[in-house]
């Protein structure tokens, strides 16, 4: 497996294929090199380089004190990170899988999210919590949860998720640089997705909170993020044959939410579908559909629809393809956007 360190070694400047995992590793490395207060901690992040090898090479380059294998206790990890941040460090915590962040929820909700507020701004916590999330990798139970709804419902957190190799780098750099706690959700099944990428001149570090239009179109808007972006882009290509010209918005940041970009797109197209893996009920789609409707009601030709995971615990590997929103389901939803009403 090539690694961030390997990428770092290849300082040619010429774009070459890199995976999202490599771009993330590089973002960590560059942040650590630039700012000695950046510390990485978590389970297996040191010697092993993380189970997804995102932190590979960091312990070697920066030492065990900068990239630390902790005891196996997520509340302890995040709680310790709080203390480190209180003393002026900038901890980056890795949770090994989505479901294994749950033991840390009390620390997250009652402290990480609230500390700046409860101290009247005196004690901000610049902590980044990296959480590999979502399914599609054939993981056994508890390894494929889409947990973004929990984070979105917690004021005080930023919730960021990249869908491209460039964003993986740029958004992680921005998250680490942020003076607020950021939940950085890494779509597991995109870890090995590749794009041409120049380690010499990596993607710019963009401010957190801006969505981006990945594909322009006039018929309807697909609103999505993270693991579902490739699905939506593929659906948009397939839709051309059916006569639909779909716009695709990649949210990138669930909190803060970029109402402006999203609403502008939907006002243009008049129709929208929200697509995500997370269970539909109580998932991000409800919030997104509600806010779009509040802002674009008189522009809407049809209700904003949602294509989401079913309202069930994540299935066993052999059945996950039936659960995950795929191209067909997206196109079905687009078909249900009451096109007859037009004519």
């Amino acid at each position, binding site marked *: 497996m090539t690694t961030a360190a390997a990428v770092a070694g290849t300082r040619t400047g010429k774009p070459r294929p890199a995976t999202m995992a490599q771009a993330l590793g590089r973002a960590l490395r560059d942040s650590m090199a630039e700012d000695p207060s950046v510390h990485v901690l978590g*389970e*297996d992040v*040191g*010697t*092993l*380089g993380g*189970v997804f090898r995102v932190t590979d090479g960091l312990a070697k380059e920066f030492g065990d004190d900068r990239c630390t*294998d*902790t*005891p*196996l*206790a*997520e*509340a*302890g990890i995040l709680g310790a990170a709080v203390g480190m941040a209180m003393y002026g460090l900038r901890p980056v915590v890795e949770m090994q899988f989505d*479901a*294994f962040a*749950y*033991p840390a929820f009390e620390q997250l909700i009652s402290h990480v999210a609230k500390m700046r507020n409860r101290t009247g701004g005196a004690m901000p916590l610049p902590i980044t919590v990296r959480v590999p999330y979502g399914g599609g990798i*054939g*993981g*056994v*139970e*508890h*390894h494929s949860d889409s947990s973004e709804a929990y984070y979105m419902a917690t004021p005080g957190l930023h919730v960021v998720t990249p869908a491209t190799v460039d964003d993986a780098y740029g958004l992680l750099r921005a998250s680490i640089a942020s003076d607020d706690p950021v939940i950085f959700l890494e779509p597991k099944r995109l870890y090995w997705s590749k794009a041409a990428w120049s380690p010499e001149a990596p993607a710019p570090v963009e401010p957190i909170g801006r969505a981006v239009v990945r594909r322009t179109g006039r018929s309807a808007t697909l609103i999505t993020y993270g693991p579902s972006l490739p699905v939506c882009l593929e659906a948009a290509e397939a839709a051309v044959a059916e006569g639909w010209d779909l716009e695709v918005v990649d949210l990138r940041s669930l909190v803060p939410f970029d109402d402006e970009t999203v609403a502008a797109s939907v006002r243009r197209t008049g129709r929208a579908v929200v697509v995500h893996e997370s269970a539909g*009920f109580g998932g991000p789609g409800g919030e997104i559909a509600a806010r779009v409707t509040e802002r674009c009601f008189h522009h809407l030709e049809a209700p904003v629809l949602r294509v989401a995971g*079913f*309202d*069930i*615990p994540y*299935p*066993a*590997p*052999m*059945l996950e393809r*039936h*659960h995950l929103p795929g191209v*067909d*389901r997206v196109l079905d939803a687009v078909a249900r956007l009451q096109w007859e009403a037009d004519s």
Partner: protein
Amino acid sequence: MTVQELPGAAAYRPTPPPAWKPLTDPAPLLPDPEPYRVLGTDAAADADPALLLRLYTELVRGRRYNAQATALTKQGRLAVYPSSTGQEACEIAAALVLEERDWLFPSYRDTLAAVARGLDPVEALTLLRGDRHTGYDPREHRIAPLCTPLATQLPHAVGLAHAARLKGDDVVALAMVGDGGTSEGDFHEALNFAAVWRAPVVFLVQNNGFAISVPLAKQTAAPSLAHKAVGYGMPGRLVDGNDAAAVHQVLGEAVARARRGEGPTLVEAVTYRMDAHTNADDATRYRGDSEVEAWRAHDPIRLLERELTGRGLLDDDGIVAAKEAADVMAAGLRERMNADPVLDPMSLFAHVYAEQTEQLREQAARLRVELEAEHDQHDDDAEERR
């Protein structure tokens, strides 16, 4: 303020704080200074030869099971397999010390314990094959679902044992966890509840030296994991986890103690994970060959085989017979795992709630339409090909 009213120093004699008394004598809770061993020691003379032979057959079978399951990952028949090669003595002893009415709480690494308890290996491996989350009815076998979120099964074992005791049932729960798992808050809370409730539960920590890549020294600074017992007011026992006779004896005593209503015990079995964490892991990244080799000399099958052959309880024929029995089991397992499981996608909605909600009914209906369309498409394709 009451202070000023009180008389001076005259009558004052220091006393301990009024309510204070040591709740338990700590001395009996402390583990032995070294892992307890039977094989090759004087204690071996007391061991029941039939039990030793039974343990031997099971160890050989268990080793073969681990090898077979690992092979199945290579053939794509298992999504993942966390091998217990090297830890068979713990797995087997944990299963054998329990009565049928008792409960076992295994982690993801403990399918072998479930199999040794009598579970069909195919059912034990279902989770890891990837067709269903749990391949068996936990209540029928009194084996809790294999647990992945670390240490979370421990409070379950405590609650179950407590419930059984409240109902007057003579049931013990044995819960398995790794060295890494002892760092989780749930470990702490479970042991504390167990001690306060005097629940009939035995905690078996398999200290196999690593939590994935993290060695014990980064996991704890305690004298031993068994020493944690003292802080809960339960006895801690330290045992050589590769000595099947010793593990069986120590666990057996802990189970008997629990059954007598004397409360929980924490057992640390010192062992070693000979394979990588799972087939997906690369152990060379974090440990050297020499360490592995040192442990190979302390292999649980080897230790027992030497004891048995040394005492003339086992000969070459016996060794071959055990191996052959294991091979038969493995061949059967291989064959049965080679069949594709038949799965019904509609099962996704069947067991979320006792009664399907309106919303799930709608979602199920939508999936059914999709599946029918897929099916028709499939038929059309077949038609075309004709």
